[in-house]
């Protein structure tokens, strides 16, 4: 058992947790690097994994964004000639798949991984190596999916992949095979991540942190992970059926053999609708953290926000068929799903009301993070209201599969999920990297994105109601929609500039670092009660929690008579006290190669399934190797591997 002996004093606390490679497990010795790229690749530190999730997701965000721009450029004028019909179909399939599975979901995983242990006062997640496996499975899955561009064509069946159009006769390239297999791989990533975070949240909270004292972001992450645990297997079934259909000639979607194509739709949307909440609830959590901090008030109606989140989580399972109002389910089923869909608006509305009430009576500070949070409320309200208009199922028969729906879910997913993520970037950047992003650039970033997104997606409401159909590779001349399509394209470029400013902001903060104060926003929750960036072991001493907004209550004291709060301590003082009372023993998990090896085997097996089974065998061997090494290697290095921090550096030097 690795124990970092922890003499008091700040100097010793700086010491890295190191491992010596005395013992070889399997074929490799344990990775020991504590700096450089190796320390990242083989890390099982939840913070480094969180950052890697974020960086990879940001990269895919740019990829998906470029795909979106190509789509918009094609549609700038009627009969656009930039992309062929075939390429366009691949483009919109990959844009959606990328944004959903490779951007928003992993971005939530990034924030969840990084912040949840800090918010609940834990030293790491419950299963650190499983965490690393999750990241690498997502990473390799994403790379594998995009390989299809260079191997005969990307998937072209839409992200919803309706059978039988995704069968071999109708989609003969290997694109859909890549899609089906890649989503199974990223599904494994999500499932392992979800189990990990649930166990972490349920089992590893600091003393005194009851569920109802938990920061709201961790709550929303908890709800989302439960949704994932139950939604991922459903789409896995759908993917397996399609996989067997395409590769082994199964008959699940062969109408000639008597199959019902609606089976796919039911399976897909039973996953697909909870998926919508999987995408948007983490951002709700982020906003529910940002608004109180910059309103200088606690979240209004904390239990209502928690329960409405949980209610959305439950009700989200009962509305899937509203994606199928035109599918011919029969009026009785449609009526049932119409009602359930209309009423899921209630808990969503509760959240918006609570956010507004949080700001009411506060002292609002308009930082970039706060602007994005308010932006989310506004844009999501538009998306939510347009959602109600097509919950009305007869209206939906006019609106479904038109740009009206495209407008709706971009307001929800861009104005909701992405704005929340950007609020999170600006809010937690100083915590994660110890550096400030430029607020000035940030405001340009925000306003360009707001103008760009409303200009891009706003007119889609109009052209949708004017009958412009979705997934069309060209704007059909004579439909009376050309003007707004041009407006949309120009706005999408503005939006792109907005996003680019964020990238520039990130580059700038690296070139000209500006050290962040310890508590730049006067924040309220536990993650701020540690160094920026946090030490490897997160907290010098695990704090005991007495209330929601623990950090706030340690900084401010309430006058019992007037109810006024006055500042009694600074963050620096609180941290110094923590250091002075540092825990004597801290157990940190040790780096490992095996999760990455195991994850790497997955796409190899997948490529083999498509091209040559021999490759699959090789992949299976890699997986077996990974499992074997993983089982042989204890999750933390043995006692003998460790010495006190001083000795450890010596041993390291001897090895190198």
């Amino acid at each position, binding site marked *: 058992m690795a124990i970092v002996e922890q003499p008091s004093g700040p100097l010793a606390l700086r010491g890295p947790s190191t491992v010596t490679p005395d013992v070889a497990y399997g074929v490799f010795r344990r990775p020991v690097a504590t700096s450089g790229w190796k320390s990242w690749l083989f890390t099982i530190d939840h913070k480094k994994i969180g950052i890697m999730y974020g960086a990879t997701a940001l990269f895919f965000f740019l990829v998906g964004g470029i795909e979106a721009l190509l789509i918009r450029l094609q549609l700038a004028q009627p009969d656009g000639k930039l992309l062929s019909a075939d390429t366009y179909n691949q483009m919109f399939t990959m844009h959606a798949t990328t944004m959903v599975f490779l951007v928003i979901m992993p971005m939530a995983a990034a924030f969840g991984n990084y912040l949840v242990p800090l918010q609940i006062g834990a030293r790491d997640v419950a299963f650190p190596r499983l965490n690393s496996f999750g990241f690498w499975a997502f990473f390799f899955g994403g790379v594998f999916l995009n390989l299809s561009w260079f191997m005969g064509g990307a998937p072209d069946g839409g992200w919803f992949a309706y059978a039988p159009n995704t069968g071999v006769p109708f989609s003969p390239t290997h694109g859909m095979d890549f899609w089906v297999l890649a989503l199974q791989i990223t599904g494994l990533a999500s499932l392992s991540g979800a189990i990990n975070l649930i166990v972490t949240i349920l089992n590893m909270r600091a003393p005194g942190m009851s569920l109802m004292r938990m920061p709201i972001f961790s709550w929303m992450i908890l709800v989302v992970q439960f949704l994932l645990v139950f939604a991922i297997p459903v789409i896995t079934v759908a993917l397996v059926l399609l996989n067997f259909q395409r590769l082994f000639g199964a008959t699940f979607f062969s109408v000639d053999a008597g199959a019902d194509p609606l089976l796919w739709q039911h399976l897909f949307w039973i996953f697909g609708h909870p998926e919508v909440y999987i995408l948007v609830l983490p951002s709700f959590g982020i906003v529910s953290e940002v608004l109180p901090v910059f309103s200088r008030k606690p979240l209004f109606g904390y239990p209502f926000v928690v329960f409405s989140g949980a209610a959305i989580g439950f009700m989200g399972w009962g509305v899937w068929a509203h994606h199928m109002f035109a599918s011919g389910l029969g009026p009785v089923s449609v009526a049932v799903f119409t009602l359930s869909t209309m009423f899921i608006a209630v808990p969503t509305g509760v959240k918006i009301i609570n956010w507004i009430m949080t700001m009411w009576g506060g002292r609002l500070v308009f930082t970039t993070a706060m602007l994005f949070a308010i932006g989310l409320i506004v844009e999501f309200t538009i998306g939510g209201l347009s959602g*109600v208009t097509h919950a009305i199922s007869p*209206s*939906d028969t006019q609106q479904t599969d038109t740009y009206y729906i495209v407008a709706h879910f971009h307001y929800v997913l861009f104005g909701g999920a992405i704005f929340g993520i950007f609020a999170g970037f600006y809010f937690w950047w100083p915590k994660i990297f110890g550096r400030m992003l430029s607020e000035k650039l940030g405001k340009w970033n925000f306003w360009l994105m707001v103008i760009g997104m409303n200009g891009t997606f706003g007119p889609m409401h*109009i052209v949708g109601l004017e009958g412009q159909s979705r997934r069309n590779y060209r704007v059909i001349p004579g*439909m009376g929609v050309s003007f707004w399509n041009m407006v949309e394209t120009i706005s999408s470029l503005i939006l792109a500039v907005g996003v680019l400013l964020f990238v520039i902001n990130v580059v700038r903060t690296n070139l000209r670092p500006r050290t962040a104060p310890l508590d730049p926003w006067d924040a309220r929750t536990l993650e701020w009660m540690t160094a920026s960036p946090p030490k490897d072991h997160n907290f010098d001493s695990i704090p005991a929690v007495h209330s929601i907004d623990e950090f706030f209550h340690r900084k401010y004291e*309430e006058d019992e008579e007037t109810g006024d709060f006055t500042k009694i301590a600074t963050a620096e003082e609180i941290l110094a006290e923590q250091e002075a009372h540092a825990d004597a023993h801290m157990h940190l998990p040790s780096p490992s190669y095996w999760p990455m090896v195991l994850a790497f085997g997955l796409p190899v097996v997948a490529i083999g399934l498509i091209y040559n089974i021999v490759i699959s065998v090789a992949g299976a061997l890699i997986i077996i190797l990974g499992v074997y090494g993983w089982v042989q290697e204890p999750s933390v290095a043995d006692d003998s591997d460790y010495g006190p921090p001083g000795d450890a550096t010596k041993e390291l030097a001897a090895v190198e």
Partner: protein
Amino acid sequence: MQHRMIRRSGPLAAMAAGVVALAGCAQGDVPQSTMDPKGEYAQTIFNLSWPVFLIAGVIGVVVFAIIGVLIVRFRERPGHEETPKQVHGKPTLEIALTVLPAVLLAAIAVPTVNVLFDINAEPEDALVVNVTGQQWWWEFDYPSITGDDGLPLVTANEMVIPAGQQVRLNITSRDVIHSFWIPKLNGKRDAVPGRVHTWNLHADDPGEYWGQCTEYCGLSHTNMRMRVIALTSADYERWVAQQKTDARAAEDEAAALGEAQFKSLCASCHQVDGLKDAEGEQIVAQPQTQVYNGAAPNLTHLMSRGTFVSSNFDLLRPDCRLERDDLSVNDPEAFSAAYVEGTSVECLNKTQLEAWLRDPPAIFPMFVDPTQLEATDGKYRGMPNLNLTETQIDQLVSYLQTLK
């Protein structure tokens, strides 16, 4: 900050303005508008939709106004240092604000469910039309009307119905899922292979109503378009009578040469009722051996239609088309009469027809690339390039224009 709020609620204002602008639009300008209903069902849906839009709009404006007010009122000002009152919530207010939207939604739910059952109910004395989607065109057949050949009357891409009468559709598909949608007449309904879905149509007046397939169905999904043509009852009867007849044998020499070309090049996929082989037997298109999805459009009365290739191209020359569109908007009765006349030789858009015959996949993406057919057992989907010579094209056009 206030002006920012105005900018932020811009899209909503634009939406409202757009809605108003749309209402004033002439029919021809936005041919697939859902806000310009021209039949009973579309009207019923629209009557249900717009109050909901209005309510949603009002709620939106109220929410944004509140946010605007609090941004101005509660922003941090210099000298404003004290920590605000730490309010944790007001349960009564919360419950009230939860119940209120629930009640509002319940109020909307009642008419919604009513309309839902209304538009799905089977109307009495309806004309039945079977709708079959396939990549990437629509076939319509009329099971209650039998042609000279003893088979139901069949046409493609332009469905002709009598104005003012109820039409019951049985919708299905031969390959993948499609969706039938004529926005001005009714919402959409999916065409699912292996299932038959019912749906209703009704047009108040004669006219030409655009639609397109709205369930993504592969390569040329965008181009899978169709029209519903509503005629006066009298004109509709004339149209039926004319559709019942078989095609006559070609009379002039050019057409006869074209007919011969048609028999050898086209007739294996495209049926022309009345087209006889050397033994005097009807030539039956048996396309299943070559094309994945089954039949190609029946061309017996091609020139009775105003468009071809899934209503993507006009059979009418641009000037004749303008004239017809004008009638469709301004003089429905005259439009009806003109439509039954079909596309005359004078008005025929020969350039377009020739361009199509020269290289179909070039102007309408189809799955006919011979190098990609391995996965589909050599079956293609759509019309391949037949590499016709200009002479062949001329002869075929001469023949096709006789198919009235």
